[in-house]
């Protein structure tokens, strides 16, 4: 595992995303769910691209999922991250369906596998919100 912890950069928060980021501070991963076709919408937006409905409701998800794919980054120019090599970027498929981009933490990068069960962990940005990362379940 890298000797350095991953950085926790504060996100840009669009006006309609305040609810999403506020939830992360409370340890909740939430996303719009369509009232009409029941699809979860990721990344969040205030409508449902699947059916065209504008009736969506913020709905907490379990935070459980599996690794759909991943890469161990060995070279990086990203400030904060380049001091923490190697690190893992992945898509995690949530139990509810959507695949979200994230980091896998709490495990040696070489031990991460496709299909591995993971669960969400929140890393405080110290700006009133937290980054949603995943660790082995």
């Amino acid at each position, binding site marked *: 595992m890298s000797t350095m912890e991953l950085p926790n950069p504060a*996100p840009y928060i669009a006006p309609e995303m305040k609810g999403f980021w506020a939830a992360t501070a409370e340890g909740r991963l939430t996303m719009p769910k369509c009232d009409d076709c029941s699809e*979860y919408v*990721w990344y969040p937006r205030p409508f449902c691209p699947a059916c065209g409905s504008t009736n969506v409701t913020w709905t907490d998800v379990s935070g459980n999922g599996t690794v759909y794919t991943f*890469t161990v980054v060995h070279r990086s120019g990203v400030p904060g*991250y380049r001091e923490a090599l190697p690190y893992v970027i992945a898509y995690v498929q949530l139990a509810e369906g959507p695949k979200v*981009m994230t980091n896998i933490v709490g495990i040696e990068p070489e031990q991460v596998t*496709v299909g591995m069960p993971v669960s969400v962990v929140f890393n405080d940005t110290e700006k009133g919100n937290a980054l949603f990362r995943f660790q082995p379940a």
Partner: protein
Amino acid sequence: MSIRGKAFIAGVYEHPLREIPDRSSSQIQAEVAFGALADAGLTLADVDGYFTDSAHGFGGLSMADYLGLKLRHIDSTETGGSSYVVHVGHAAEAIAAGKCSVALITMAGRPRSAAMGMGRGGEPVPDSVFEGLWGMSGAVTGYALAATRHMYQYGTTSAQLAEVKVAASLHAQHNPNAYLPKPVTVQEVLDSPMISSPLRRMDCCVVTDSGGAIVVVSPEVAASLPRQCVKVLGHGEAVKHADMGRLDLTYTGAVVSGPIAFEEAGVTQADIKYASIYDSFTITVIETLEDLGFCDKGKGGEFVLDGALVAPHGKLPFNTDGGGLCNNHPSNRGGVTKVIEAVRQLRGEANGPTQVPNCDIALAHGTGGSIGARMGSSTLILGQENA
């Protein structure tokens, strides 16, 4: 309306340099414009349609001003590196509709020598917010995510990916302008440093300052020109995006753009004598070969074995200029060189040992953005003037 036979590529030009510290990207755009127009036997004054990306200034407006173009048609479609393949298709459509008769396509950039990038300043788009927090370092990370999944699902190996680079390098040795002209072996690719697993340095394309231009003209203009033109037979384009988090990284937008282009051209995979396949990374080629129907889904790794991609006698000679992997990836966008090399093959002007015999029908495919999230795909099928 079909564009088949409604437009011809009359001129192309690839900038010969790969490191350009001493001129602006705008000057390079002018140089490639002059080069392609001279190749066609035309001048700036003949141009009435202009196509470029959005990477410089105010889309096409800034360059139209700089070049002093007198236009009746302009198009700044932006789909990343595939933009210029799209532009050929859109130019053919505009010409077929009578909107212009001499369409100039240009692009250039200097990622080695000058800071560049899209979307600087202003409000971030949502995808950049939700994908920008995790240490994505350049394009390679997204393509690595696709490669890992393709390997997991289909058993594709690093050695198979390496075969793509080896074939490109065998071609590059015959290109005097290639950035990396030295042939490499599978073992050398496997021994190169890991960048973002499973992709190693030699799985990645080059970063070059350069540019390219294409001139597309009406059949009437083509008939008036001394040189042999190349006929546009068919074109397909597609956008494949993250689909609300339902993404599948094992295929590309070529599954949509390919069939559209083949149908319009009235040809099949078996008719393609040469293929320019976008090679930002080796995995891009493997997935695209499958998606264009040159082999079954998941069999791209097996397809590229035994020199299948090596000119002139492989099953499907590809990227005979050395491709983005070895020759040129101007401005981090390789679509223009894909079209240019296909035109060279059809005109019999490829570098000696890489010229495919009897090359009457060729394909050029562009992939822009990232196969790890959202991409533009564009497939162009071209033929000799009498095809």
